[in-house]
């Protein structure tokens, strides 16, 4: 039986996702019986939610990334980069124009995190793309393009039906070492194709693009360059 003195410091750990599963159960058991700890937990949760909802995330002014990288770039290589500068400026403009954390990306990241926590990443667990593809038939309103990238180190691990934006989405799960990645696929609702754009939300990197009438969101916690390479590879093929 846990006492208040034992439970109280753990409430914050649970809120921060730093408590092991066994202690979470013991803590919840205590909190359920203890009005003081229930109040403390609710108060901390409310504070955290208020912070996430109202705390300002300062966005860099337009051109900031480009300006700074240009100043940091070593002089000897500036000539080589002069040609690339135009492309860089264009890329920076795109980054500025897109909202950094739009609602769909937020949802995709949340769905990704959920899939890791619940140990329920896959409804159909197989590396065989010819099994995964038909599994989605009748579950989402489009044909799901399924490809394996084992040769690049991203092995298809399976698929799952998820919900984004209030409707069914196909989630393809890839394994990269110990990491799992989710590729969410939704109907693009007639939106034009768009090149991959990357961002970072709560420690996960996300890439999104549109192609062939579908919207793709890739979410994972592998390193930035690897994610980008994979996203570009995927976008080029679909």
């Amino acid at each position: 039986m846990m006492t208040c003195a034992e439970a109280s410091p753990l409430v914050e750990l649970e809120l921060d996702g730093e408590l092991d599963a066994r202690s979470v159960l013991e803590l919840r058991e205590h909190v359920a019986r203890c009005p003081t700890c229930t109040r403390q937990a609710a108060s901390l949760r409310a504070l955290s939610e208020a912070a996430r909802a109202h705390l300002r995330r300062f966005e860099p002014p337009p051109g900031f990334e480009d300006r700074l990288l240009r100043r940091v770039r070593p002089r000897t290589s500036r000539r080589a980069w002069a040609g690339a500068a135009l492309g860089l400026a264009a890329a920076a403009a795109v980054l500025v124009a897109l909202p950094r954390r739009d609602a769909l990306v937020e949802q995709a990241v949340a769905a990704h995190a959920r899939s890791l926590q619940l140990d329920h990443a896959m409804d159909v667990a197989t590396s065989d793309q010819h099994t995964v593809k038909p599994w989605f038939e009748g579950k989402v309103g489009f044909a799901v393009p399924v490809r394996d990238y084992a040769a690049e180190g991203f092995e298809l691990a399976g698929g799952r039906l998820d919900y984004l934006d209030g409707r069914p989405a196909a989630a393809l799960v890839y394994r990269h070492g110990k990491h799992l990645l989710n590729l969410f696929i939704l109907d693009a609702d007639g939106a034009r194709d768009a090149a991959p754009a990357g961002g970072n939300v709560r420690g996960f990197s996300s890439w999104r693009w549109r192609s062939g009438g579908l919207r793709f969101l890739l979410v994972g916690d592998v390193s930035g360059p690897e994610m980008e390479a994979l996203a570009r590879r995927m976008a080029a093929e679909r």
Partner: protein
Amino acid sequence: MTGAAKFGDFERTIGPHMGAAYNLARWLLRESADAEDVLQEAFMRAFRYFDTFHGERARSWLLAIVRNTCWSFIARRGEPEEAFDDERDSAAVLPLQLTPEPEAQLLRADQAKRIQEEVAALRPEFREAFVLRELEGMSYKEIADVTGAPIGTVMSRLSRARRELQARLGGAARKASVS
């Protein structure tokens, strides 16, 4: 590695985290005019040290450099921030309040909106821990890596930050109990 190849590598590694770097600098410096200068210095340092970066978490690596550059800048600026002594101050602060008044517990909507100014008013050690946790979603370990503090210290700073915010947002009536 040639300069251009190194720079390309550098750009790909830190590019995705420049927004987080800017956000942290703004929260620490509180002045947008300073942020760009300080970040330029931080990125130059990062580029110089990039050879020692071995592909561990790029965000923590970059934010640690940004954070340290911000703190040096604040010290140079001679800001009258009272130095916080974790050992001395935490001991006095951390008896957990087990029975706070119920009315102080839940935030009303108008109070929640004040959170911006109240977080800005926190001591910088608390402010950075809270912002890294709530806005960047960093784990204790990651915050420890960025701030160079032991995990236990991170936990007590975060806890202290929350208690101060609860008190300040929970109504003026309880102001006295924390300071």
